[in-house]
């Protein structure tokens, strides 16, 4: 009954079913594109190019995925996934390490230039790589870092989001801990290693999830600096699989690659969901 339903906060009967129905419609909107990509990755090219394509999976799953992973279009997708993995891990770990060190220095030391340094890294929060893309490209080219992992990784760890996060966390660590360490005559690095680092474990893990996905999903930067197909990452490599001109795209392989491109980040997000949500809310607020 509508009257009872709207008077109660906790939903029963019809109201509850309407709620589920609403959510399921939302899920359909979210999953239809993914489902269609999956279906396309299990059928043959003729089935796709003669629309409408089937809406249920076909029997060519292994064939299409093997073809994508082993030969791909320009480069084997397995190889591109390895490049993506190296890039994502490099960005996540690199950024975490340099940020932990500098946040430790900013919070636990008074050194000359501390304030200036703080404002310098603060400024990096404001500029995504997309904005300074041309000069950054020139720098990387001058270093001979085109088509290299360091070229893929370093420009993307040059921002201070993680430093801010660790700084905020270190500020909440009770002063007594550092005091005790100092009284015991512990060296600063011992305190960092034995006390601060273990305490930061969950923060580090949460940040790792976010940075891994950030790195894996990069598009514009790898597109610019990896001209050699063997250095392509999977996310930018998909677009390269489309033929220029009027030829028909190899849809089953392209869609298999799209599915492969989303599997690692989806696994990371789903399996570390609690940490991820915490990291997201912490880092953005």
């Amino acid at each position: 009954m509508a009257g009872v339903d709207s008077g109660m906060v906790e939903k029963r009967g019809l109201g509850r079913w309407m709620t589920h129905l609403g959510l399921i419609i939302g899920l359909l909107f979210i999953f239809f594109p993914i489902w269609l990509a999956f279906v396309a990755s299990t059928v043959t090219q003729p089935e796709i190019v003669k629309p409408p394509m089937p809406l249920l999976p076909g029997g060519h799953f292994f064939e299409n995925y093997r073809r994508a992973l082993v030969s791909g279009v320009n480069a084997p997708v397995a190889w591109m996934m390895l490049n993506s993995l190296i890039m994502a891990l490099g960005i996540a770990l690199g950024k975490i390490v340099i940020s932990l060190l500098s946040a430790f220095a900013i919070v636990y030391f008074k050194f000359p230039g501390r304030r200036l340094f703080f404002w310098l890294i603060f400024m990096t929060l404001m500029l995504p790589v997309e904005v300074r893309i041309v000069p950054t490209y020139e720098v990387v080219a001058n270093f001979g870092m085109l088509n290299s992992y360091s070229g893929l990784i370093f420009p993307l760890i040059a921002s201070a989001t993680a430093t801010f996060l660790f700084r905020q966390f270190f500020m909440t660590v009770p002063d007594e801990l550092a005091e005790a360490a100092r009284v015991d005559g512990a060296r600063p690095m011992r305190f960092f290693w034995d006390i601060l680092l273990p305490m930061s474990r969950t923060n580090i893990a949460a940040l790792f999830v976010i940075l891994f996905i950030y790195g894996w999903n990069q598009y514009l930067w790898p597109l610019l600096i990896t001209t050699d197909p063997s250095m392509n990452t999977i996310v930018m490599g998909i677009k390269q699989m489309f033929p220029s001109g009027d030829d028909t795209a190899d849809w089953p392989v392209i869609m298999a690659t799209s599915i492969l491109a989303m599997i690692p980040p989806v696994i990371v997000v789903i399996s570390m969901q609690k940490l991820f949500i915490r990291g997201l809310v912490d880092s953005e607020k």
Partner: protein
Amino acid sequence: MEKRVTFKGIWLPLLLVLPQLVVTAVFFFYPAGQAVYQSLFIPDPFGLSMKWVGLGNFEYLLGNSYYRASFVTTAVFSTLVTVVSMGVALYLAVLADRLIKGSGVYRTLLIWPYAVAPAVAGVLWLFMFNTRVGVVTWYLGVLGYDWNHVLNGEEAMGLVVVASAWGRISYNFLFFLAALQAIPRSVVEAAAIDGARFWTRFRTIVWPLLSPTTFFLLVVNIVYAFFETFGVIHTITGGGPQQSTTILVYKVFSDGFVAQDLGSSAAQSVILLVIVGALTIVQFKFIERRVHY
């Protein structure tokens, strides 16, 4: 805020900040400075010398109808992306919040698009609306609608908006759900006992309490639409047809790398820099205010 207890030493902390300092100096401050510097010059066609033009690049840009059109395109695009993704996310979050059991399952499923790269989202939506093989295109054809985003600028805009908004729903959903779950049940229940219907409760109690989150998401989503949707646009439309989906970031790329017009591209970078700076300041001001709540 400062720590009461600090360690002694000067060289150790300098050594600790060195890696970050070097990386940001080389890959951030130097390129950003270069962008500002280059924006004041025009290189000759062979790239051998630079001619000082002062603010000429900026004057040229602001007088250029394509660039002004790109501003309008960006405004339309980011408004639509923000409204669509936040609207859908709020709708789903309100529903999930009504459930006593099972909201976790929906949350796990709704997180998916966050993990899908914008460029991959672009490919997925392109596939559905492809003019030759797209399933949705085909069924629209059956219904008598001739979908062609390759030729029709409005359809192209619609497609990149939906694909960009789709990828952003998870993010907004998580923030809205967290904010909704933070509202004390007793407040909403009290209104319910007073006989306030769902819509009245939402409008008078829930929505005002959500406003800090809504405002935060507004800023963050505009930044997302400005910068992170490059992959969507590059895969689906390539900025076309007739530049109808060329947003500012896309134009920096196409003028700088495709057309090799470095002075103009650098000037555009500087303009974007100012825009992001303003947005960031708004965001930080807002966060500061939020601390007092």
